């Protein structure tokens, strides 16, 4: 049909595909469009991180410890920081009779001299840390970006694994029905009964010390998180299995595999996409949760959770160390959730589980 077909009443009768229709609805939803942009930028930055002009996220610089966010060169910030400390102690010694602090003051002044001496000689003192530095003098901006790479990677790999396992098991259970379905779903029920983060914690605790825990983490998170997808896919397949179009396909002699892959799965695709977008932030949260407890990725790699956890130590004096990774992570999670909500409204307008 022509793109601008008009019927007898001068009404547009342009046929729209499900996806075009969904895209139209998504575009109308400002928050999810914002989410889409933010997620896009995050992924772009994460992909491009190695070629971006960033300081090495592992590079420690003891002259630049705990510097606040600033657009000035690090040397200047460090000197100002040191000067502030000296002023404070001087005030204590001179005006409040704390003569016992005199040795501290001397030490600070000596440090100051050393710092100023290194200013000219050390090229790193021209570094600019717009998000400040951590307790080892590492650039927070670069730490947050590389932390994001790890978090997002775990979210992505976890989601893909969970979705694949979930689809396969859900499709088999839903299509086969009977005993197999019963067995699989009983198993899923029992797994559901377990608090799944606790299982991941156990799995993480079983990793021999010294192995690369990131890989184990991928597996651990993905292994226990296919349950929901499996249930959803199974439910969809069961409800679709008895629908007319599948009957029609079967009556025309289509085989089981063909029915599942050509007819049933494409029809559950919307639900799977929605679930994946909503699942990814929860993976990221879970990984960060483990890293926060010290059971996540191992050093020197750091995820957002590791950074938040490090930031919590000493957040009273150096709040940016907590706030920078916290905000970076939260913004991404917000965007993912907005995007997921938007996709759900767009792809599944009659959705009943609009929680």
């Amino acid at each position, binding site marked *: 049909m022509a793109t601008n077909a008009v*019927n*007898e*009443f*001068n*009404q547009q009768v342009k046929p729209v595909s499900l996806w075009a229709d969904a895209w139209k609805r998504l575009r109308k939803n400002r928050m999810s469009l914002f989410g889409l942009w933010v997620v896009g930028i995050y992924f772009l930055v994460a992909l491009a991180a190695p070629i971006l002009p960033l300081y090495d996220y592992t590079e420690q610089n003891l002259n630049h410890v705990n510097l606040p966010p600033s657009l000035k060169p690090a040397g200047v910030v460090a000197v100002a920081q040191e000067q502030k400390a000296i002023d404070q102690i001087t005030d204590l010694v001179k005006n409040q009779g704390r003569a016992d602090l005199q040795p501290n003051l001397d030490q600070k002044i000596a440090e100051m001299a050393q710092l100023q001496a290194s200013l000219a000689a050390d090229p790193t003192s021209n570094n600019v840390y717009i998000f400040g530095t951590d307790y080892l003098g590492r650039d927070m901006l670069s730490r947050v970006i590389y932390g994001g790479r790890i978090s997002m990677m775990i979210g992505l790999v976890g989601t893909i694994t969970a979705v694949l396992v979930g689809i396969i098991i859900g499709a088999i259970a839903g299509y086969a029905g009977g005993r197999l379905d019963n067995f699989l779903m009983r198993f899923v029920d029992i797994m559901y009964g377990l608090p799944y983060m606790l299982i991941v914690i156990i799995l993480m605790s079983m990793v021999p010390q010294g192995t690369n825990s990131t890989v184990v983490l991928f597996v651990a998170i993905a292994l226990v998180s296919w349950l929901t997808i499996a249930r959803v896919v199974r439910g969809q397949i069961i409800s679709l299995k008895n629908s007319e179009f599948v009957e029609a396909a079967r009556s025309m002699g289509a085989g089981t595999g063909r029915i599942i892959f050509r007819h049933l799965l494409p029809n559950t695709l919307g639900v799977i996409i929605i679930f994946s977008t909503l699942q990814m932030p929860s993976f990221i949260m879970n990984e960060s949760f483990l890293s926060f407890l010290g059971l996540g990725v191992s050093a020197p790699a750091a995820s957002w959770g590791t950074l938040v956890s490090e930031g919590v130590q000493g957040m009273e004096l150096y709040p940016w160390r907590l706030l920078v990774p916290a905000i970076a992570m939260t913004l991404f999670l917000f965007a993912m959730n907005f995007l997921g909500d938007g996709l759900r409204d767009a792809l599944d307008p009659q959705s009943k589980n609009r929680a």
Partner: protein
Amino acid sequence: MTEEIILQVQDLKTYFHTDEGIVKAVDGVTFDLHKGETLGIVGESGSGKSVTNLSIINMIPNPPGKIAGGQVMYAGKDLVKLTINELRSIRGNKISMIFQDPMTSLNPYLRISTQMIETIVLHQKLDKKTAKAKAIDMLKLAGIPAPEKRIDQYPHQFSGGMRQRVMIAMGLSCNPEILIADEPTSALDVTIQAQILDLIKDLTARLGTAVILITHSLGVVAGMCDTICVMYAGRIVERGPTTEIFDKPKHPYTQGLIKSVPRLDKTSGDRLYSIRGQPPNVIDLPDCCPFYPRCDKAMDVCKRKYPLSKDVGNGHAVSCWLYTEAK
């Protein structure tokens, strides 16, 4: 049926404001309902039958819906203009409704007794005990066996037909003047349909209740109604006494509808007649006869202007250019 008019719907317009445009679900509907009369409204799905009746007791979900014009005169008052409190004293009391799907129209979490008694207590100011006795009486009238026992059960313990009997009992429990039945049998088995229709006919005749029966089935209106309104795309295209409509249908749409009813007395190998095409989308419909693309007798004027209603005698009116002189 007497000559006393109890409900007068005049040029009623109900529009829904959607993203795609204004849906004129009801666009200038006019009809009268007499005391004790049974009036049938027939039309395809989407023709505006249900919206018309929800508009009568002003139950259009707003937004997106809105009664854009016209009046509904009942007992000297325009229901469209009443406050919500005044309307409430009429709803369920003077004008009550029963709906299409008895499976979902009763609250699944409350006992039948609770749901019936609350209406009676509200409108008839009876105490709970008397109200319960009245409810049991109504259930008995509606043909529910052992009503004393069943009244304390939940809806899911009733079959579809039984639930519709409960709905009818509930709808008639305050002796309303008007009962609006919105496709009361469409969701039921064919064998149950006749029983339910008989029940409605029998009970309302006994209680002197006027009925507005909404249906897409000509067979139902033929057996039940005194008067018939045929709706198409938000308008009443033809209305008149049942015998008139069936014997001398004027509007090509009505003629088509009647021709497309399968008949046992015509057993030849003829194919069953069907009206070609689809009912129109009522968003931003231009001022024309909405039926013309499907009409065998369409003329040039049909595409330009909607015809006014023309009285053809015996209380029979039709909106079609075949019977109206174009100006």
